């Protein structure tokens, strides 16, 4: 049996409820994706277990995370989780790539998308599988829709491919 797997790229975005992930086979081809709620007080160990299961199942070529070091306003728990995820990837011999929100916006600027919603909309156009998951525009009094994190993860993956190709949006 030929054992080689496709060259997967895994993008993970932790949220206050759990995490979202998108596993890409190519820039326009997500293989698996999802949003997982972790209903425990200490969410990080369970999140780590769930991400480990995904990594061991699919053996991604690279893990793409948000860069929480430079000007990010992520909570201490999430920052700690980013460090744990990076460590996990290193132990599984998977390189970690980090992009700041500024990097992501720069990748999508060529299609006129700068806000999170505009980027999500651009992704929904690029990847029809996500079209039906596009959240409504967030009003200032609304909290963020849980579906948004899926698009944030997709944006990380697309930014990775864009950077690899030396373009803005692939």
């Amino acid at each position: 049996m030929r054992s080689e797997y496709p060259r997967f790229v895994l993008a993970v975005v932790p949220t206050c409820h759990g995490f979202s992930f998108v596993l890409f086979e190519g820039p326009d081809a997500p293989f698996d994706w999802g949003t997982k709620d972790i209903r425990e007080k200490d969410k990080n160990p369970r999140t780590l277990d769930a991400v480990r299961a995904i990594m061991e199942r699919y053996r991604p070529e690279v893990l793409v995370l948000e860069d929480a070091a430079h000007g990010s306003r992520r909570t201490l728990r999430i920052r700690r989780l980013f460090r744990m995820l990076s460590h996990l990837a290193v132990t599984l011999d998977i390189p970690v790539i980090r992009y700041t929100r500024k990097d992501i916006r720069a990748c999508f600027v060529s299609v006129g998308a700068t806000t999170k919603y505009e980027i999500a909309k651009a992704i929904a156009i690029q990847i029809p599988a996500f079209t039906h998951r596009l959240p409504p525009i967030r009003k200032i009094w609304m909290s963020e829709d849980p579906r948004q994190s899926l698009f944030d993860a997709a944006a990380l993956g697309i930014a990775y491919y864009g950077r690899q190709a030396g373009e803005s949006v692939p």
Partner: protein
Amino acid sequence: MRSNPPLNYVRTLRRRWALTQKELAALVGIESRSGISRIEQGERLPSLEAALALEVLFGVAPNTMFPHAYAETEEAVMVVAAGIHDGSIHSTNPREKRKCALLEDALARATRPAGIASV
């Protein structure tokens, strides 16, 4: 790292088209959603009827939808084909020559099918 279960594109295609496991099970004639779940997880292969129903539904051929299963089958067939080919390659019998032509074609075609990304 433990060996990974074979990948297939059933879950990807189902979720791409916003179908639930229950809906897909009903569409392809599988009794319960757990049957679809087992297929998606690579724990079992669909029956011929279900594989054809998946092709009818998604328009993706089974060799593309189940690349690992296809590769396994292909390899098994090719091992036997290479043996038969080697045994009859020097024959002057027209039937044997005809057989060799088929096996050479099959051996030449024996490549891993393209994934969904390139379809």
